[in-house]
């Protein structure tokens, strides 16, 4: 006697590769101000990104992971989240951080090797950039559990990459989200690559969204370069979460248009051909096309925006470069709430060693 149990995930897109609506747009599309605000953030992010790479190339900063290709999804996350929600990032979320109010200078400090770059003023509860892959998924579940424990109607958004879904942390965290009905939405930025490892080696699963089924969570695929699709799917997932209806896993399908980081050379493992194809789906250009076609955006506005973003980034870079380095003694000052007696002597040694090292 054989029985069948069925499971499903859905996938959504509204714009074609060139920004032409494939049919009726969701009603959020009527909110022109929101759409334009998103577009501005995408352009700012892309302007920042190019500058950050240049700083590394000229020895003025450290290894940096380009966000090229993630701007649309990242921007939507920042837009859909409420101020009181908590964002749990990985390390390629510049677009979201900027929407959440992280200062350009803070991002520069972080990637410039200065811990103060994580002392975010505007979104003090958001978790810092997370380098150990997928570990942040468990933190996201914990933050969401804290909301549930206190009966707060807030939600968590956790970002990770396609590679991150192979690490147990992701499975354990989404499983807890399902078991405890936690208000947390996991957004997987599927940019097709984990450094040199293609999506196909990462998992035999046809889609990443279907991993949600293992946790009893709804799974959604969305074109990560389609502003309207990401907005609709994320808005409704966050609404469900805040309403106590539990979490979700969203696979945002996009492509990593840059090297993995400035330390990487993607030409070693992927073809120019593939990259060229991916550029044709670029979501920023796509939204720009849509705005132009809809008569909501004009070349001179574009030029003004470009100039404004460049100026904003240059100002931040100037600030960053003018920032006094932290004194070496700082390495002891934030380890514990109060420095144990035992470590005082080590701190004094550092202070002695570095003239003016005392803070």
């Amino acid at each position, binding site marked *: 006697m054989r029985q069948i149990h069925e499971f499903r995930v859905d996938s959504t897109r509204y714009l074609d590769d060139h920004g032409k609506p494939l049919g009726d747009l969701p009603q959020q599309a009527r909110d022109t101000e929101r759409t334009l605000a998103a577009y501005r953030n995408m352009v700012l992010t892309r302007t920042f990104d190019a500058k950050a790479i240049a700083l590394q190339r000229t020895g003025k900063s450290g290894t940096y992971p380009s966000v090229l290709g993630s701007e649309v999804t990242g921007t939507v996350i920042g837009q859909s989240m409420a101020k009181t929600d*908590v964002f*749990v990032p990985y390390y390629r979320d510049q677009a979201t951080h900027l929407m959440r109010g992280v200062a350009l200078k803070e991002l520069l400090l972080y990637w410039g090797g200065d*811990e*103060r770059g*994580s*002392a*975010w003023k505007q979104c*003090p*509860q958001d*978790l*810092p950039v997370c380098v*150990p892959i997928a*570990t942040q*998924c*468990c*933190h*996201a*579940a*914990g*933050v*969401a*559990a*804290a*909301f*549930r*424990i206190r009966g707060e109607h807030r939600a968590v958004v956790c970002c990770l990459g396609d590679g991150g879904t192979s690490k*147990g*942390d992701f499975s*354990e*965290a989404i*499983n*807890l989200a399902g*078991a405890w009905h936690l208000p947390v939405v996991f957004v997987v930025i599927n940019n097709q690559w984990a450094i040199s490892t293609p999506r196909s080696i990462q998992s035999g699963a046809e889609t990443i969204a279907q991993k949600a089924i293992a946790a009893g969570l709804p799974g959604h695929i969305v074109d990560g370069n389609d502003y309207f699709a990401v907005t609709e799917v994320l808005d409704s997932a966050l609404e469900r979460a805040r309403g106590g209806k539990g979490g979700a896993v969203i696979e945002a399908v996009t492509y990593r248009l840059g090297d993995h980081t400035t330390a990487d050379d993607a030409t070693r493992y992927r073809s120019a051909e593939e990259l060229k194809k991916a550029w044709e789906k670029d979501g920023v250009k796509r939204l720009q096309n849509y705005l132009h076609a809809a008569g909501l955006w004009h070349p001179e506005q574009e030029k003004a925006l470009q100039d404004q973003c460049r100026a904003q980034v240059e100002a931040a870079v100037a600030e960053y470069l003018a920032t006094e380095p932290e004194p070496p003694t700082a390495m002891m000052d*934030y*380890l*514990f*709430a109060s420095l*144990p*007696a*035992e*470590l005082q002597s080590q701190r004094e040694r550092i202070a002695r060693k570095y003239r003016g090292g005392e803070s």
Partner: protein
Amino acid sequence: MKHSQRRDVTLVEAVNMALTWEMEHDPDVVVLGEDIATNGGVFRATVGLKEKFGFRRVMDTPLAENLIAGTAIGMATQGLKPVAEFQFMGFIYAGMEQIISHAARMRNRTRGRLHCPLVYRAPFGGGIHAPEHHSESTEALFAHIPGLRVVIPSSPQRAYGLLLAAIRNPDPVIFLEPKRIYRALVQSVADNGEALPLDTCFTLREGEDVTLITWGACVMETLEAADELEKQGVSAEVIDVATISPLDRETLLCSVAKTGRAVIIHEACRSGGVGAEIAASIAEAGFLDLQAPVVRVTGYDTVMPYFGNEQAYLPQVGDIMEAVEQVIAL
């Protein structure tokens, strides 16, 4: 309301008493782990908590230590004070990445913006006839990680006072409970919410001739050895290190300055154990005080045997006596 009633309790009961007190007085304290709610923990350390405080604050988790470690961190960044239980120390390793890379660093890497006021509890040590992987003493792994406090009680009173201190401490604490003596002795403990200081050794017995330095279950054999030695006219000072990281070197050095001799006793294997750091520190800072080398009485550099031979692995009173005779001879 400090209902300062005294109770005769074992070490594991004292743990339960401290958890109960703090959960009653601080709504931010929550506990989570495997089998800790309905079942009250496999050693009953959390028994009654779910009934008193409800499943929102007393959470049975799915079976995943990495998840337990990481979820507690997320909760802590929201200002909760999670007390997470690892069912046995032998199963904490899956949580190492979360503990080392996040719990120990959250405050430092965010320059104080976020922190982790959490406690990771785990029963540790051998000697209870348990199956393999249930008898670990790898406290040294955590003592080497900056940003962590590693606290080990060795009596019901210290279990109560140190656990309260650990929960109230704004930084992450690894709280290791010597399960071999979970029920070995009963002490009268005042349930008054009074914490004991962290980062401080406890001198359990004053002496002149030799300093015996230990922690955890070995405190029992060490005190026994001190009694034996007294009969032989040797006056031993016994120090329970209690907080093995950060280490209270001052108390240890003062004692050695007095006795001129030190023997360190721990259950963990010898090489790279916490005894090494203590011996190195004493040998360096106490160089001129020492009349004999600092000797270590420890487990062997091998895997804790299955229980058929575990007693042969554990340091015994005779081993401590032998070591003391050796250093006294010089």
